[in-house]
């Protein structure tokens, strides 16, 4: 999977679910992809750290509904802007791909 793709997925999930922990992100991706995307922790957490280091995500420890301590991620303003840009770029890219593949050769 492309690194950029994972970043975009994470940013989107965090944007729609609000403050959310790593497990929930993995679950959400698995659920949306109907089990096709099973994120290994060794992929997910480095990705989260990377986004955090770039100032796109912000993380804080908090309690879950089941009263466990977990690290909750939310978007920073920069992360929100980035998501818009990336989404735009992605649509453009898929549009191009679509046209290219539809083209009868």
């Amino acid at each position, binding site marked *: 999977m492309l690194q950029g793709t994972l970043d975009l997925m994470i940013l989107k999930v965090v944007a729609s679910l609000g403050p959310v*922990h*790593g*497990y929930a992100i*993995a679950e959400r991706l698995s659920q949306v992809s109907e089990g096709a995307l*099973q*994120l*290994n*922790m*060794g992929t997910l*957490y*480095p990705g989260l*750290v*990377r986004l*955090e*280091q*770039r*100032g796109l995500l912000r993380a804080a*420890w908090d309690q879950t509904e089941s009263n*466990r*301590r*977990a*690290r909750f991620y939310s978007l920073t303003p920069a992360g929100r802007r980035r998501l818009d840009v990336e989404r735009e770029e992605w649509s453009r890219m898929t549009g191009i791909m679509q046209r290219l593949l539809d083209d009868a050769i």
Partner: protein
Amino acid sequence: MRAVLEFFSKLRAVFGKEKLDRGLEDEIGFHLQMETDAGLRRGLDPVEARRQARLKCGYESAAAEETRDQRLLGWLDGTLADLRHAVVALRRHHGFTVIALVALALSVGLNTLIFTMLDGVLLRPLPYPHPDRLVRIFESTPRNPKWPVSIGNFYDIRRLNKSFEAMALYTGDDLQLMHGEVPERLKSMCVSHDFFTTVGILPILGRNFEPADSTAEKARVVIIGNRLWKTRFQSDPAIVGKTIRLNREPWTVVGVLPPGFQHVGGNYRSPLQGETVDLWWPLLVRSTSRNSHFTNLIGRMKPGVTVEQARQDTQAIARELAKIFPGTSRDLEFRVEPLTTELVGRSRETVWLLAVAGGLVLLIACANVAGLCIARSLARRREIAVCRALGAGTWRLVRSVLCENLVLGLTGGALGLALAAVLAPAWRGLIPLDFPRAHEVQLTWTAGLFALGSALITSLLAGLAPALRQSRVDPAANLAQESRGASAGRDAHRLRAVLVTGEIAFATVLCVSAALLVQSSLRLKARDNGFDPNGVLTFQVALPRTGYDKPEQAARFYEQVSAHWRTLPGVQAAAFATNIPWMGYDENSGFSIEGVAERPDDPTQARYQMATPGYFEALRIPLRTGRYFDLRDSATGPPVAIVNESLVRRYMPGLDPIGHMLNIWGKPRRLIGVVADNYDHPADPRAEPGFWLPLAQMPMGEANAVLRTSGDPMSLLNSAVTALHEVDRELPVAEPRTVAEIARAAFAERNLANWLLQAFAILAVMLAVFGIYGLLAYVVEQRHREFGIRVAMGATRRDILWLVLKGGLGQALAGGILGAVVAPLAARSMASLLYGVKSGDPSPFLWAMAFVIAAALLASVTPALGAARADPAIALRNE
């Protein structure tokens, strides 16, 4: 921006590692727990739930490891670990460490000192605004390439040039200050009014000179230097406008210069560049003579004008003047030199010689440390092969080696800097006082950076070859080879041998250079200088105008004082003269010889000096024929002259000189004696023609006393000055010293180069010896088994001894010959420092090679003896 953010975030992670690590484990633990809980909810038993969770999400440890890698600056974290590891390893292998550190510290320390000289003398800009725009301008003829500019020509250049913003004249003319009880002669400079504007630094108190000061006959105004203001006038803030007593007349102080103002220096009637002048007074520039040359010219070029443009500009002016004044300016040319070039002069070569010699030593040290590193990398080969086999990357291995050298370099640099700091005072003491810009030679932070930088570069360079080799280590071959105990790492060994050969070659070059200098100084010592500097006291007096305005008054003064001195106990001869040999004398005059036609291609011209009877006796200048001056040569006696041998050889070849009449300054003077040649400087290839007139017949206001005594010359000073004050109570004496001191000073720069080159050569040979020793010791250790077998097969101890010695000798010969081939280049570049030795002379080369080879043999003896003791039984049993 984002990259920077990420970098700092990572940097924080490296140093706050433990806390972050715990957080990470918690987070991953939580994730796994949630997944396990989900399994439990599906009805799995706890063990199975955990197993499934791990299957799905991965192992905690692997995930944590990967996340950590992302979070930290992987390389920095690793480097810190490597550095710690390097320190531990260096401590453990202290033999290696100590030798490498000593080599680094010595070579870096010495080079740092040399750098302070290079920096202070050549690199640091002069302390004036835009110093690169300052130039010195000379009149130039084929015979006198750098003459002072006449005032007439100064006016014309200033009027006609297009390249200069400002230009000014200056010439030394000391004044006597009477402030308090003791008269004092102060270094004073007579300058045209725009001198300070040209230099670019103005008085901090009072005013600058004005054009009116340079034209008024009796403008008794003076600007004083900051040091004099502080020491003699207690920093009096109201000094401007006050009157001080100079040359027995009242003068008005009009300005005080800023602290640290440095005079621009010059070779003619000027003290050295630096804080060397106390008083500045206006030069009378009303005369427009083109014949009299006693003023130095300094100019400030307009911004953007190059020295070459200024040269062309002044040349055009010279051509124009030659047309207007064909009489006096027929061959007139101007010469323009940048102030820095002019100041540093021939010392530039000395500085570069030392810098290059120091650089060679540094290179040798580098090769030495590199050899040590190679040996160490061979010893570590097995360890590296294991690391490789376990999957360590190339960069990691290179890094671990370079980290060791980084630590080595930093430590060596710090030690070298400390050594330089300890030696700095002694070093400054070694530099002759009259060395250009000697006062600028200081241990500055630039020198500190240089020390650390050169040590780092040296040690990293030294570590490069082994580090790159490590990256190519083939684990399989090495692990297998080690067990076979065969002659491993052959190419590494070859590289080391090449390095040692290089060390020996460089050491040979340095030894040849040192031998050339030593030979020069031996030749100079054996040279007949035409005078005997030992046992002579000298000091200067300057008779003021007041009280001595008639020539007879001065003549009487000299005669009376000399007579007083001759009665002092221990005094063998006493006299006055305008000059002392080896003080950089350079005053010339034309003259003619009656009955001998002047050759158009070689006009008769000679150095002129004046002396009282007793001068030649006091300096023991041998008489070749005729007689010395005596009491007959008084003011009223018939005019006479004494000449030197050079003058006779050049202008009166084949004639009997005694009795000839010389026309000097419009008066025929009988030639009464011929004396031995003196040189202007000790190493001059030949003496210039010169003549002497009796001081009584041509009285000068400034003269040097010379007193020869049987005892210690300086102990005579007090009684000599007292005797002088009996004749004139208010006359100060200046610069008392022995002529032996002047002679020593004349040799000082040459001696400095001499000593340093010898020290460098010895250090270089020492380092090369270490190199050979290390190499052979390693070879012997590697071939121990082979030697055992040879002995078992019947080789004698002597065979083995010779086998090893031969190796060392081969290295030494190869390096020595290589060095001897390169050395003539070095010899040519230092030609100006050589005397009486041709750069092609074989003996210094042979001496140097013999010395280096002997040292190399000496270094080979211990390993060779070790090899000869090889016991076949033990060597073979070790297998």
